[in-house]
């Protein structure tokens, strides 16, 4: 009787293992044949023209380049155990989300981006030009205070690190905006507009050719 029961259990374990193996194989076959990891080289875009919408003359003297990296994350948790159970079941039904449905960490949706950005600090001379004050023995140049001139956050520097659940474009854009604010805040904390003054002075001194004493002043 006992031997019979052991045999039954053995058979059951073997059958369950086979079912799990079939499910696992099915999952990988789906990924290989239907979904697959999108590789950049696989993407060949159709030719479309590049439209020049506006051409503008500007005059910006950039003296400090700040390259930063920010991690931005948004997580939505299940509100109750019942919701978590149903949510996990939903994910188990969706082959793209199976791995998230099995993790059992209470996370309903999660989107994490790693963003690289470049900030340029300097002076915008279109808004306010230099003032040259020539005195007998000195030349005084009054220049505007450096400020943030451009923030470049591009797709090339964006990595979608975790994408659990379905996300809309505006939600991704919200995170990208958050990364932008984070980088600007880091730049302010590091007092970069202030630190852009020294290279600005250096750039001007290398350009100005005078026998007089050169004095560079920043506007208050």
């Amino acid at each position: 009787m006992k031997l019979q029961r052991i045999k039954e259990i053995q058979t059951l374990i073997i059958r369950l293992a086979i079912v799990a193996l079939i499910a696992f194989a099915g999952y990988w076959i789906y990924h290989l044949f239907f979904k697959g990891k999108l590789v950049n080289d696989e993407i060949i875009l159709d030719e479309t023209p590049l439209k020049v919408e506006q051409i503008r003359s500007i005059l910006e003297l950039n003296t400090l380049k700040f390259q930063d990296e920010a991690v931005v994350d948004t997580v939505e948790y299940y509100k109750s155990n019942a919701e978590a159970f149903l949510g996990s079941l939903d994910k188990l039904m969706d082959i793209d989300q199976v791995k998230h449905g099995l993790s059992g960490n209470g996370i309903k949706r999660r989107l994490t981006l790693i963003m690289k950005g470049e900030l340029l600090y300097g002076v915008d001379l279109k808004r306010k030009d230099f003032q040259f004050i020539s005195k007998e023995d000195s030349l005084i140049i009054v220049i505007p205070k450096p400020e943030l001139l451009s923030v470049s956050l591009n797709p090339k520097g964006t990595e979608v690190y975790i994408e659990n659940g379905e996300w809309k474009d505006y939600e991704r854009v919200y995170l990208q905006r958050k990364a932008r604010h984070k980088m600007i805040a880091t730049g302010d904390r590091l007092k970069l507009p202030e630190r852009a003054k020294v290279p600005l002075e250096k750039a001007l001194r290398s350009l100005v050719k005078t026998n007089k004493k050169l004095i560079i002043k920043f506007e208050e």
Partner: protein
Amino acid sequence: MKKWCFVVLLSFFAASCGDEKKVHETEVYRIRSVGMLSTTEYALGKIIKWNDEGEWYKFGDRKILLSCKATVKAGINLGAIKNADIEVKGNKITIQLPPPEIISFEMNPDLIRTEMTEVNGFRSDFSQEDKEKVLQKGEESIRKDLQKLNILDEAEQNAKIFLVDFYKNQGFEQVIVHETPKDKRNTNIDH
């Protein structure tokens, strides 16, 4: 008993599949002094079009149309001007201009829109990761197309105008600015 075995197997399967990576936040930054004079800005627009037919073993196809805008600034690197590049003779100044280059490139995420997607057969919809990869290709394509635009010539002309004004303000009567030959320009698109 059967239920228990199923739960054990499922847990084992879950443990092997779960991919909730931990995100560690560290500050990684680089500050560099530069001396770039931006003189021209182009606002560009492009439709990014991808027809993903997939491989022969993928059943169905999918299409996506994204619209995006890019702002490109070009100018010259004042830091590349050496003492030997500036020659002063009385009231006349001669300056050798460094080659113009792209100074900044920005594709504002706020101005990127998914105009259309179409998914057929057994293919899955475009995830945010898929879209980001398509956009990366789009960015690459815009950067390549920049070479066909007149942006560098215009940036050089505007830089010349700036330098002539700059030196005239300092009291020089004659300002001569020499350009770098076009074949010596930097053709790097990754700035």
